[in-house]
Each structure stands twice: as C-alpha cells, then as structure tokens.
C-alpha cells in the first residue's frame, strides 16, 4: 500500500508543478526546451504503440510526423482553419496513411518491416521535396499562423507550453486506457506470439492496422503542433535521422513501457540541447553521434531500456493484486 500512495503523491505533485513552471523565474529558453521535450514525449509514445506494444520496428515514423506537419501547414496557409479542426484533420490524415502503409506490410516481420517503413518515410520526404505545386518543395512553408483561441493568437512561449502539455495529457490518457484494455492486450499478444494470438481469436490484420493508425495519428498530431509552434516547416526536418532520434528515446527508456519512453525523452532532448551549447557551430549536426552511441551501448548493456517492459508490467500487476485484495477479503 505504501509505495502506491507514494507514487500517487509524486504524480499529484508533478501534475500541480508542471503547469506552474512558466510562473517561476524560468526563461523562455527553458520553456522552449520543455516544450520540445513534451513534443518528443508525444512522438515517442506514438512510436511506442507500434514498436513497443506490437513489436514491429518502425523506422518510418517521421513520415507520419511530416505528414501531420504539412497537413497543418497547408491547411493553415490555404484555409486558416481553427486549431482544433487542424489537429483533428492532421490526425485523420496520419491515420489514413498509417492504414495505407500498414495493410500491405502486414505479412512482414522484423528486418523487412523496418526496411519498408524506412523506404516509406524516404518516399514521403522525396514527395514533399519535389511536388512544388503542393508543398513548395525545398523552400519550405513559412509564416504558418499561430493557433488562436477565442480571438487571441498564441505567441508567447508559455502559451505553447500549456498547449503541448494539454496534447500530451490527452495522448497519455488515451494510451493508458488502450494499454490496459482488450486492445492493448491484443497488441501485447501479437508481440509475444503471433500464432498463439491468432488461436486466441485475435484478428491480426485488424489489430496491427489499428496500432498503425493510432500510432500514425499521434505522430501526425505531434507534427501539426510542431508546424504551428515553429511556424516554418522544411523537408529536411523530416529526414530519417529524426526517426532514429525517436527510436533512440524509446530504446533508452524501454520499449513497450509508457513511463520508460517518457523518461527517454526527458533525458535525451535536454542532452541534445546541452550539446547544442557545448559543441561549436560547425559540429552542431554531429550531436547525432551521441544518439548512435546510445543505441549501441543500450543494446549491448541493457537491451530492455532503463524501465524495462517486464518491470512496468509487474508494477501494474502488483497494483491490480492490491486492488483486488481490497475488494475481496477471501483472496489469499
């Protein structure tokens, strides 16, 4: 009972504290970093559904991120729709492409799946770069209007901080609910053993496609937020290395565990900001070197990540046991 209460207290403190950060003495810079951290938490939570829960290594996640960003950017520029509508449309568009990619790749597993998703994301970038009539190609889309609510346009850093916090909470709640349900269990079953899962009556097609669609739409939501926040998008922002970065987050944190992936984002994104300060200008892009090293070292020393899936599961089980114990005195 004790650690359960402690955990609750910590969560409550965090929930109360996080929104207060902008009121403290923190600068814009820190707020920006935190916003990036939350954004990457959203992305890694999304990737975690396919790679962690369902067990398929998705190297093309950034494709959906890009699709979301460009959906938001183009819709803002051409139609100037309200933010809520844009987020919804981006999510739907992401889901559509997730399904389009998911259905043909269903039969693939392991390496080949990874390669096909990789090829997909590269094709997305090529398309964005070359179809000038739609995306303005290498010029990028600039001057995307900031989201506005009730006539107030968001401009300060803390506005975006709260916006991404809200998005993150929504995503977190959705994933939490899905994980501990019939759908989440079906995903786990597919990851653990596809044949046994089928024999338990799980429709592989349906659940894999569902995982793909949800993951892609979360990625697209992240992209839409990014476009609205940064007000400028460019094809180079959605290159393969971004996928590797997100992969790195969930590998570091622990594939399949929700808090692990969030921890990964919390550790790596500020690290890369620190590197950005430390490293001289011309070496800026070489901070990816660190991500490479992290991937290699994690795979060698702790392939299950900092918070392995099994530990997250046994925590959850302990709680469930306690809950049942409270209700039923007969339970041993």
């Amino acid at each position, binding site marked *: 009972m004790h650690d359960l209460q402690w955990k609750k207290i910590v969560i409550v403190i965090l929930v109360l504290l996080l929104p207060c950060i902008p009121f403290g003495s923190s600068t814009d810079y820190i707020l920006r970093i935190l916003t990036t951290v939350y954004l990457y938490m959203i992305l890694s939570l999304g990737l975690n559904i396919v790679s962690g829960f369902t067990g398929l290594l998705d190297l093309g996640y950034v494709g959906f991120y890009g699709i979301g960003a460009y959906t938001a950017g183009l819709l803002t520029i051409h139609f100037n729709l309200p933010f809520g509508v844009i987020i919804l449309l981006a999510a739907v568009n992401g889901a559509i492409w997730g399904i389009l990619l998911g259905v043909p790749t269903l039969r693939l597993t392991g390496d080949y799946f990874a390669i096909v998703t990789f090829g997909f994301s590269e094709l997305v970038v090529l398309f964005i770069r070359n179809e000038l009539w739609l995306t303005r190609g290498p010029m990028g889309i600039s001057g995307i209007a900031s989201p506005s609510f009730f006539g107030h346009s968001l401009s300060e850093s803390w506005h975006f901080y709260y916006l991404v916090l809200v998005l993150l909470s929504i995503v977190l709640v959705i994933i939490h609910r899905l994980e501990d349900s019939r759908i989440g269990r079906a995903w786990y*079953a597919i990851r653990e053993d596809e044949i046994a899962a089928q024999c338990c009556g799980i429709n592989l097609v349906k659940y894999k496609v569902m995982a793909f669609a949800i993951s892609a739409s979360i990625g697209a939501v992240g992209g839409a937020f990014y476009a609205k926040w940064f007000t400028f998008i460019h094809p180079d922002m959605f290159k393969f290395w971004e996928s590797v970065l997100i992969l790195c987050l969930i590998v570091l944190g622990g594939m399949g565990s929700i808090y692990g992936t969030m921890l990964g984002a919390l550790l790596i994104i500020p690290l890369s900001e620190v590197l950005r300060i430390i490293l001289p200008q011309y070496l800026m892009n070489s901070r990816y070197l660190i991500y490479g090293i992290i991937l290699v070292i994690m795979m060698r020393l702790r392939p299950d990540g900092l918070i392995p899936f099994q530990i997250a599961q046994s925590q959850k089980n302990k709680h469930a046991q306690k809950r049942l114990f409270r209700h039923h005195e007969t339970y041993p």
Partner: protein
Amino acid sequence: MKPILKAVHLSKNFGGLQALKAIDLEVYPQKIVGIIGPNGAGKTTLFNCLTGLYEPSGGQLYFQDQPIVPELSQHIYKSIRIASFVFGLISFFWIGFVLFYTYPQTVFKLELCLFVTFIFALRILVIKYLNHYEAWAWSLYFMFLFIDTYFTIRLFLVPIHVHALLIYIWILSFIICHGYVLTILISFETRKCFGFKMGVDRISKMGISRTFQNIRLFQNLSVIDNVKIGAHICMNSGFFSTMLRLDSHVQEEKNWEQTTLSYLRDVGLENQAFHLASSLSYGSQRLLEIARALASKPKLLLLDEPAAGMNPKESSNLISLIRKIRDSGLTIILIEHDMKVMMKLADYIYVLDHGVLIAEGSTDAIRENPKVIEAYLGPKI
C-alpha cells in the same frame, strides 16, 4: 446423435510429403477423443488443420455441420488463374495498340515501349503472386481493367502531345500502386466473408480452442493477462468505448477479472495470478495454457500433449481436471504420449501412423490391435 466435428477425406501435403492422407474422423459431443501415434504421424498437423493454421490440401472439415474449410476457395482458384493471364495479355495488346496506332510520331517510342513492357511484366508478376490471395487478385484485375479503359477512352477524346503521354504513363503506374492498396483495403474483410481464406481467428470464434505442444504462452505478461487474452473473443469493447472509458467497458473489464480468476481457480493457479507467465513452472504453464483455451468459452477443446513433462501427481490432477472440463459440457480431442493418461481418459481413440488412420475404437480395442502394436514397436521379427 450428431457429431460435433467431422473430417471427410482430410489430407495435407507439404511439397512432396503427405503429412495426412485422407483422414476420416467423427467426434461426438461431450466425449474425450484421443489421438495417438508415433512421432511424425501427423497428429499436430491434424490439429493445425483443425485450427486453421494450415489450409488442408484436400477434403473437408465440418464443425457443428458448418464447413471449416472454405468451399469456394478451391473452385475459384483455377478460373482466376486463367483469367489473370488472359487479362494480362489483353491489356498488353490494348496498350500496344494505343501506343502504336494513336501516336505514331512519338519521339520516345523505343523507351516508352520498354517502359510499358516493364510495367506490364510487373503487373503480371503482381497478379501471379496474388493468386494465393484470390480476392485480392480478383479485385486487382477489375481495377486494372477499369484504369486502362478509362484512360484510353480519355486519351482518345483529348488532343494529346508527347508530354501528356508521359504523364499518362506516370499516372498509370501511380494508380497501380494506389489500386493495389485500395484493393487490399477493400478485400481483406471480404476475403473472409466470401470464405476465400480460413482465418485462424474466425475458427476460434466458431468455438474451437487449443493448447500447443511446445508451450506458447505470452511469456512477458502476467498469468491473468494471458487468460484475459484468451477471453478476447468473448469481450466486445472497441476502440471508442475503451478510449472514452464508457460504462460498458469498465463493467466488462470488472466482470472478466472475476471470470478469469475463476478459470485460474479451476486449474489451481489462482495464487500466482499476478506473476509473470515465464516465472511459472513447466507443469503450471501447461495448466495456464488450458485455462487460456477455456477462457474463450469453446465448444471443442484441442489438447496437444497436456501431460508432457508432468510428474505422476500432477498428471493425475490433470486427469481429474480434464474430466471436469468434459463434464461441464465440452468436447475434448487429446494428443498424448503418456498411455496411462490416455487409457484413463479417452472414450474413443484414433491411431495415426505416417498420416494414415490405422485404427480406431475404444481403449480396450486399441490396446489389443496388432496394427497399433506394430506401428509403435515395429513389425514382428
């Protein structure tokens, strides 16, 4: 009484090897039917055919008078194959006709032809490959047919120069990709509706559930989650009710928590309900597999060597468990090497050897059968 499961001339080939040769089985409700035979006799293959993991090469299976093997499948296969090649040829000549007689001044003639040939080779390859998935191929042909007709008609109507022709080729190849994706989208459910493919999950929804010879648990999940996954088809909360945590979803989860615990109580694993499945002992893992199979509320339970690796005490517990399951109204088919267990449990026994049914009958009849003794011990010297 009507048999709950009936196999008629069931056979399965792997390349040249005939794993099952025209097996006839009849299983009556609320009976325990044993299947025995030496290693490699085809027992597990039979189970895999029953649960849809393998598609039988011939014969038919009836579960409660409903055919398990889709009957359309074999029938349509041939005609689709013929249609695919005829269609491939027709569309090839059609494009050739359009290219050579409509635009004789085409500059990139040679290359264009090479390109079109390439595209059509690709198409035929795709169609040929998809032959294993009838409905996909079926829809794909219509898609190709539609595209070709539509665009050629459009090309006849609109004044065209070379540039537009290139665009046409481009669109064509692009739409092939889209057509492919769309077709799959449209057809992956229809495939099952029309019975083109067996679909393992469809069979388990009919009420056949099984355990595996080499344990296939979800090792990194807790014991209770394993059983809940077994109950997957009995639950019906979908994406939205889960996401919005509707009352029905919450209620269902609560009810099933109790039900799964009661299944675990039946097999005696309630105390370990919240341990990881991988932490259980070998015998307990076998019991957990049975609990998982029971959770889907099947009518027919297939047990593949449930007593393997159990000590005498555990296997006597298992015997009483299996009897209890039978008494609760299920039919059981049992594969077992442990003859003591088999003789105590089975009401009726089938003996397989090299994919052939060599004997059937009650336990006593099988024990005396010279053919069975020969299969196990070799011919008399």
